[in-house]
Protein backbone atom coordinates (compact mmCIF):
# COMPACT_ATOMS: atom_id res chain seq x y z
CA UNK A 1 0.00 0.00 0.00
CA UNK A 2 3.03 2.25 0.10
CA UNK A 3 2.68 3.27 -3.54
CA UNK A 4 -0.91 4.23 -2.95
CA UNK A 5 0.13 6.49 -0.06
CA UNK A 6 2.64 8.29 -2.27
CA UNK A 7 -0.07 8.80 -4.85
CA UNK A 8 -2.52 10.24 -2.34
CA UNK A 9 0.12 12.55 -0.88
CA UNK A 10 1.21 13.86 -4.29
CA UNK A 11 -2.35 14.41 -5.49
CA UNK A 12 -3.18 16.30 -2.28
CA UNK A 13 0.00 18.34 -2.63
CA UNK A 14 -0.99 19.19 -6.20
CA UNK A 15 -4.48 20.29 -5.19
CA UNK A 16 -3.08 22.26 -2.26
CA UNK A 17 -0.55 23.99 -4.51
CA UNK A 18 -3.24 24.97 -7.05
CA UNK A 19 -5.58 26.30 -4.35
CA UNK A 20 -2.72 28.19 -2.73
CA UNK A 21 -1.77 29.71 -6.09
CA UNK A 22 -5.28 30.92 -6.76
CA UNK A 23 -5.57 32.46 -3.30
CA UNK A 24 -2.21 34.23 -3.39
CA UNK A 25 -2.28 34.95 -7.13
CA UNK A 26 0.84 32.91 -7.93
CA UNK A 27 0.80 32.93 -11.74
CA UNK A 28 2.52 29.63 -12.68
CA UNK A 29 0.22 27.74 -10.33
CA UNK A 30 -2.82 29.47 -11.73
CA UNK A 31 -1.77 28.56 -15.25
CA UNK A 32 -1.28 24.93 -14.30
CA UNK A 33 -4.72 24.93 -12.70
CA UNK A 34 -6.24 26.40 -15.84
CA UNK A 35 -4.51 23.76 -17.99
CA UNK A 36 -5.95 21.10 -15.75
CA UNK A 37 -9.48 22.43 -16.06
CA UNK A 38 -9.27 22.90 -19.85
CA UNK A 39 -8.11 19.34 -20.41
CA UNK A 40 -10.55 17.85 -17.91
CA UNK A 41 -13.47 19.58 -19.61
CA UNK A 42 -12.20 18.42 -22.98
CA UNK A 43 -12.10 14.82 -21.88
CA UNK A 44 -15.36 14.93 -19.99
CA UNK A 45 -17.04 15.91 -23.24
CA UNK A 46 -15.99 12.60 -24.74
CA UNK A 47 -15.42 10.02 -22.02
CA UNK A 48 -18.98 9.49 -20.67
CA UNK A 49 -20.28 8.79 -24.18
CA UNK A 50 -17.32 6.55 -24.96
CA UNK A 51 -17.85 4.48 -21.82
CA UNK A 52 -21.62 4.20 -22.38
CA UNK A 53 -20.90 2.86 -25.86
CA UNK A 54 -18.35 0.44 -24.41
CA UNK A 55 -20.99 -0.72 -21.90
CA UNK A 56 -23.56 -1.27 -24.65
CA UNK A 57 -20.94 -3.10 -26.69
CA UNK A 58 -20.20 -5.41 -23.76
CA UNK A 59 -23.84 -6.44 -23.22
CA UNK A 60 -25.05 -6.59 -26.82
CA UNK A 61 -22.20 -7.84 -28.96
CA UNK A 62 -21.62 -11.57 -28.78
CA UNK A 63 -18.21 -13.02 -28.20
CA UNK A 64 -18.53 -15.15 -31.34
CA UNK A 65 -19.15 -12.07 -33.46
CA UNK A 66 -15.96 -10.38 -32.26
CA UNK A 67 -14.01 -13.61 -32.60
CA UNK A 68 -15.24 -14.02 -36.14
CA UNK A 69 -14.35 -10.51 -37.29
CA UNK A 70 -11.41 -9.55 -35.06
CA UNK A 71 -10.16 -12.94 -33.91
CA UNK A 72 -7.84 -15.63 -35.20
CA UNK A 73 -10.06 -16.83 -38.06
CA UNK A 74 -10.62 -13.31 -39.34
CA UNK A 75 -7.23 -13.10 -41.09
CA UNK A 76 -6.69 -9.93 -43.06
CA UNK A 77 -10.31 -8.85 -42.55
CA UNK A 78 -9.56 -8.40 -38.87
CA UNK A 79 -7.00 -5.69 -39.61
CA UNK A 80 -9.36 -4.06 -42.06
CA UNK A 81 -12.13 -3.88 -39.49
CA UNK A 82 -9.68 -2.57 -36.90
CA UNK A 83 -8.63 0.27 -39.21
CA UNK A 84 -12.24 1.12 -40.13
CA UNK A 85 -13.31 1.13 -36.51
CA UNK A 86 -10.30 3.29 -35.66
CA UNK A 87 -11.33 5.77 -38.36
CA UNK A 88 -14.55 6.49 -36.48
CA UNK A 89 -13.00 6.64 -33.01
CA UNK A 90 -13.10 10.05 -31.38
CA UNK A 91 -10.73 11.62 -28.90
CA UNK A 92 -7.43 9.86 -29.15
CA UNK A 93 -5.35 7.18 -27.52
CA UNK A 94 -7.06 7.58 -24.16
CA UNK A 95 -10.37 6.47 -25.73
CA UNK A 96 -8.75 3.76 -27.84
CA UNK A 97 -7.25 1.95 -24.81
CA UNK A 98 -10.52 1.02 -23.07
CA UNK A 99 -12.15 0.15 -26.41
CA UNK A 100 -9.21 -2.08 -27.33
CA UNK A 101 -9.39 -3.72 -23.93
CA UNK A 102 -13.07 -4.58 -24.38
CA UNK A 103 -12.43 -5.93 -27.86
CA UNK A 104 -9.64 -8.10 -26.51
CA UNK A 105 -11.87 -9.50 -23.77
CA UNK A 106 -14.44 -10.43 -26.38
CA UNK A 107 -11.90 -12.48 -28.30
CA UNK A 108 -10.04 -10.10 -30.61
CA UNK A 109 -6.50 -11.03 -31.54
CA UNK A 110 -3.61 -9.10 -29.94
CA UNK A 111 -2.18 -7.95 -33.27
CA UNK A 112 -5.61 -6.70 -34.30
CA UNK A 113 -6.08 -4.60 -31.19
CA UNK A 114 -2.60 -3.11 -31.51
CA UNK A 115 -3.50 -2.22 -35.09
CA UNK A 116 -6.68 -0.63 -33.77
CA UNK A 117 -4.76 1.44 -31.21
CA UNK A 118 -2.15 2.58 -33.71
CA UNK A 119 -4.72 3.32 -36.39
CA UNK A 120 -6.94 5.27 -34.01
CA UNK A 121 -3.93 7.50 -33.36
CA UNK A 122 -3.18 8.19 -37.02
CA UNK A 123 -6.28 7.76 -39.17
CA UNK A 124 -9.29 9.13 -37.37
CA UNK A 125 -11.32 10.53 -40.24
CA UNK A 126 -12.35 13.96 -38.86
CA UNK A 127 -8.82 14.59 -37.62
CA UNK A 128 -7.24 13.64 -40.94
CA UNK A 129 -9.56 15.98 -42.86
CA UNK A 130 -8.68 18.75 -40.43
CA UNK A 131 -4.98 17.97 -40.83
CA UNK A 132 -5.24 18.05 -44.63
CA UNK A 133 -6.88 21.46 -44.52
CA UNK A 134 -3.82 22.91 -42.78
CA UNK A 135 -1.01 20.80 -44.18
CA UNK A 136 -2.29 19.91 -47.65
CA UNK A 137 -3.63 16.71 -49.12
CA UNK A 138 -0.20 15.57 -50.31
CA UNK A 139 1.15 15.70 -46.76
CA UNK A 140 -1.78 13.80 -45.25
CA UNK A 141 -1.83 11.12 -47.94
CA UNK A 142 1.88 10.40 -47.66
CA UNK A 143 1.62 10.31 -43.89
CA UNK A 144 -1.27 7.85 -44.01
CA UNK A 145 0.17 5.65 -46.75
CA UNK A 146 3.50 5.31 -44.94
CA UNK A 147 2.34 5.06 -41.35
CA UNK A 148 -0.60 2.70 -41.73
CA UNK A 149 1.33 -0.24 -43.23
CA UNK A 150 4.08 0.27 -40.63
CA UNK A 151 1.47 0.21 -37.85
CA UNK A 152 -0.06 -3.00 -39.17
CA UNK A 153 3.29 -4.75 -39.68
CA UNK A 154 4.63 -3.76 -36.27
CA UNK A 155 1.34 -4.79 -34.64
CA UNK A 156 1.55 -8.22 -36.23
CA UNK A 157 5.16 -8.64 -35.06
CA UNK A 158 4.36 -7.43 -31.54
CA UNK A 159 1.17 -9.52 -31.33
CA UNK A 160 2.92 -12.70 -32.47
CA UNK A 161 5.82 -12.13 -30.12
CA UNK A 162 3.49 -11.63 -27.14
CA UNK A 163 1.26 -14.55 -28.05
CA UNK A 164 4.29 -16.84 -28.15
CA UNK A 165 5.10 -15.70 -24.64
CA UNK A 166 1.53 -16.27 -23.50
CA UNK A 167 1.01 -12.65 -22.63
CA UNK A 168 -2.37 -11.80 -21.12
CA UNK A 169 -3.79 -8.33 -20.78
CA UNK A 170 -4.57 -7.42 -17.19
CA UNK A 171 -8.02 -8.10 -15.88
CA UNK A 172 -10.41 -6.14 -13.74
CA UNK A 173 -10.34 -2.75 -15.41
Amino acid at each position, binding site marked *: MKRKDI*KIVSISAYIGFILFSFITGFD*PGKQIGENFVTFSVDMLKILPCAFVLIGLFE*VWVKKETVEKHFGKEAGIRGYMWAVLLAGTTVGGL*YVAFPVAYSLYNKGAKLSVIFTYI*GASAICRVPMTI*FEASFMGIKFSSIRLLV*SLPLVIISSILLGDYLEKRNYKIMEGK
Partner: protein
Amino acid sequence: MYYLYIVTAFALAFSLIADRKKTLMAIKIAVKKFVNILPAFLTMLILVSIVLFLVPDKTISNCLGNNNKFVGMIFASVFGSITLMPGFIAFPLCGILLKKGVPYMVLSAFTTTLMMVGVLTYPIEKEYFGMKVTVIRNVISFFIAIIVALVIGIFFGEVF
Protein backbone atom coordinates in the same frame (compact mmCIF):
# COMPACT_ATOMS: atom_id res chain seq x y z
CA MET B 1 -17.75 15.73 -32.01
CA TYR B 2 -21.55 16.05 -32.20
CA TYR B 3 -21.88 12.78 -34.01
CA LEU B 4 -20.60 11.04 -30.91
CA TYR B 5 -23.55 12.42 -28.91
CA ILE B 6 -26.02 11.52 -31.65
CA VAL B 7 -24.68 7.99 -32.01
CA THR B 8 -24.65 7.46 -28.23
CA ALA B 9 -28.21 8.80 -27.86
CA PHE B 10 -29.52 6.57 -30.65
CA ALA B 11 -27.69 3.52 -29.37
CA LEU B 12 -29.04 4.08 -25.87
CA ALA B 13 -32.59 4.62 -27.13
CA PHE B 14 -32.55 1.48 -29.27
CA SER B 15 -31.07 -0.51 -26.44
CA LEU B 16 -33.75 0.74 -24.04
CA ILE B 17 -36.53 -0.22 -26.42
CA ALA B 18 -35.02 -3.63 -27.05
CA ASP B 19 -34.20 -4.60 -23.49
CA ARG B 20 -34.44 -2.45 -20.40
CA LYS B 21 -32.51 -4.83 -18.17
CA LYS B 22 -29.57 -5.21 -20.53
CA THR B 23 -29.36 -1.45 -20.94
CA LEU B 24 -29.22 -0.96 -17.22
CA MET B 25 -26.44 -3.51 -17.06
CA ALA B 26 -24.57 -1.66 -19.81
CA ILE B 27 -24.77 1.58 -17.83
CA LYS B 28 -23.53 -0.22 -14.74
CA ILE B 29 -20.57 -1.62 -16.68
CA ALA B 30 -19.86 1.84 -18.13
CA VAL B 31 -19.84 3.47 -14.69
CA LYS B 32 -17.70 0.74 -13.17
CA LYS B 33 -15.12 0.88 -15.94
CA PHE B 34 -15.06 4.65 -15.83
CA VAL B 35 -14.57 4.79 -12.07
CA ASN B 36 -11.85 2.13 -12.22
CA ILE B 37 -9.76 4.06 -14.69
CA LEU B 38 -10.45 7.50 -13.19
CA PRO B 39 -7.36 7.59 -10.92
CA ALA B 40 -5.15 6.95 -13.96
CA PHE B 41 -6.91 9.75 -15.82
CA LEU B 42 -6.41 12.06 -12.88
CA THR B 43 -2.69 11.28 -12.86
CA MET B 44 -2.52 11.98 -16.57
CA LEU B 45 -4.38 15.29 -16.27
CA ILE B 46 -2.05 16.44 -13.50
CA LEU B 47 0.99 15.56 -15.62
CA VAL B 48 -0.51 17.26 -18.67
CA SER B 49 -1.23 20.46 -16.78
CA ILE B 50 2.34 20.66 -15.49
CA VAL B 51 4.09 19.67 -18.73
CA LEU B 52 2.08 22.14 -20.79
CA PHE B 53 3.12 24.86 -18.38
CA LEU B 54 6.80 23.90 -18.63
CA VAL B 55 6.71 23.51 -22.42
CA PRO B 56 4.45 26.23 -23.81
CA ASP B 57 3.54 26.54 -27.52
CA LYS B 58 6.12 29.27 -27.92
CA THR B 59 9.00 27.04 -26.85
CA ILE B 60 7.81 24.37 -29.23
CA SER B 61 7.59 26.84 -32.11
CA ASN B 62 11.09 28.13 -31.43
CA CYS B 63 12.67 24.69 -31.28
CA LEU B 64 10.88 23.40 -34.37
CA GLY B 65 12.18 26.35 -36.32
CA ASN B 66 15.78 25.29 -35.67
CA ASN B 67 18.05 25.99 -38.63
CA ASN B 68 19.16 22.40 -38.98
CA LYS B 69 16.17 20.33 -40.13
CA PHE B 70 17.45 17.13 -38.58
CA VAL B 71 17.96 18.79 -35.21
CA GLY B 72 14.51 20.33 -35.65
CA MET B 73 13.07 16.91 -36.41
CA ILE B 74 14.57 15.38 -33.28
CA PHE B 75 13.25 18.26 -31.15
CA ALA B 76 9.87 17.92 -32.83
CA SER B 77 9.60 14.21 -32.13
CA VAL B 78 10.64 14.64 -28.50
CA PHE B 79 8.11 17.46 -27.95
CA GLY B 80 5.44 15.50 -29.78
CA SER B 81 6.06 12.53 -27.51
CA ILE B 82 6.02 14.34 -24.19
CA THR B 83 3.13 16.69 -24.82
CA LEU B 84 -0.54 16.11 -25.40
CA MET B 85 -2.50 18.48 -27.55
CA PRO B 86 -5.87 18.18 -29.19
CA GLY B 87 -5.83 18.29 -32.99
CA PHE B 88 -7.74 21.55 -33.13
CA ILE B 89 -4.77 23.27 -31.46
CA ALA B 90 -1.93 21.25 -32.97
CA PHE B 91 -2.80 21.51 -36.66
CA PRO B 92 -3.46 25.25 -36.76
CA LEU B 93 -0.15 25.70 -34.92
CA CYS B 94 1.57 23.57 -37.56
CA GLY B 95 -0.16 25.56 -40.28
CA ILE B 96 1.34 28.75 -38.89
CA LEU B 97 4.79 27.17 -38.57
CA LEU B 98 4.57 25.90 -42.13
CA LYS B 99 3.97 29.44 -43.37
CA LYS B 100 6.97 30.57 -41.34
CA GLY B 101 9.09 28.11 -43.33
CA VAL B 102 9.40 25.17 -40.97
CA PRO B 103 9.98 22.05 -43.14
CA TYR B 104 7.23 19.50 -43.64
CA MET B 105 9.36 16.71 -42.21
CA VAL B 106 9.80 18.54 -38.92
CA LEU B 107 6.07 19.15 -38.63
CA SER B 108 5.36 15.56 -39.57
CA ALA B 109 7.64 14.32 -36.80
CA PHE B 110 5.79 16.58 -34.38
CA THR B 111 2.22 15.66 -35.33
CA THR B 112 2.86 11.93 -35.72
CA THR B 113 4.56 11.56 -32.35
CA LEU B 114 1.88 13.76 -30.85
CA MET B 115 -0.76 11.33 -32.03
CA MET B 116 1.03 8.01 -31.61
CA VAL B 117 3.47 8.34 -28.75
CA GLY B 118 2.00 9.02 -25.36
CA VAL B 119 4.39 9.63 -22.50
CA LEU B 120 1.60 11.42 -20.67
CA THR B 121 -1.00 8.75 -21.40
CA TYR B 122 1.39 6.20 -19.88
CA PRO B 123 -0.60 5.96 -16.59
CA ILE B 124 -3.71 4.93 -18.52
CA GLU B 125 -2.05 2.64 -21.02
CA LYS B 126 -0.16 0.87 -18.25
CA GLU B 127 -3.40 0.10 -16.39
CA TYR B 128 -4.71 -1.83 -19.38
CA PHE B 129 -1.66 -3.35 -21.02
CA GLY B 130 1.06 -3.42 -18.40
CA MET B 131 4.36 -1.57 -18.31
CA LYS B 132 6.33 -3.70 -20.73
CA VAL B 133 3.87 -3.64 -23.61
CA THR B 134 3.24 0.06 -23.09
CA VAL B 135 6.95 0.83 -23.37
CA ILE B 136 7.41 -1.40 -26.44
CA ARG B 137 4.38 0.09 -28.22
CA ASN B 138 5.55 3.63 -27.58
CA VAL B 139 9.11 2.95 -28.71
CA ILE B 140 7.87 1.32 -31.93
CA SER B 141 5.52 4.27 -32.51
CA PHE B 142 8.38 6.71 -32.04
CA PHE B 143 10.41 5.00 -34.77
CA ILE B 144 7.42 4.81 -37.09
CA ALA B 145 7.02 8.57 -36.67
CA ILE B 146 10.69 9.14 -37.56
CA ILE B 147 10.38 6.94 -40.67
CA VAL B 148 7.22 8.79 -41.71
CA ALA B 149 8.97 12.13 -41.23
CA LEU B 150 11.94 11.05 -43.36
CA VAL B 151 9.70 9.80 -46.17
CA ILE B 152 7.73 13.05 -46.04
CA GLY B 153 11.06 14.89 -46.21
CA ILE B 154 12.08 12.91 -49.30
CA PHE B 155 8.76 13.54 -51.07
CA PHE B 156 8.86 17.24 -50.37
CA GLY B 157 12.49 17.45 -51.46
CA GLU B 158 13.76 18.47 -48.03
CA VAL B 159 16.19 15.63 -47.39
CA PHE B 160 18.35 15.73 -50.52
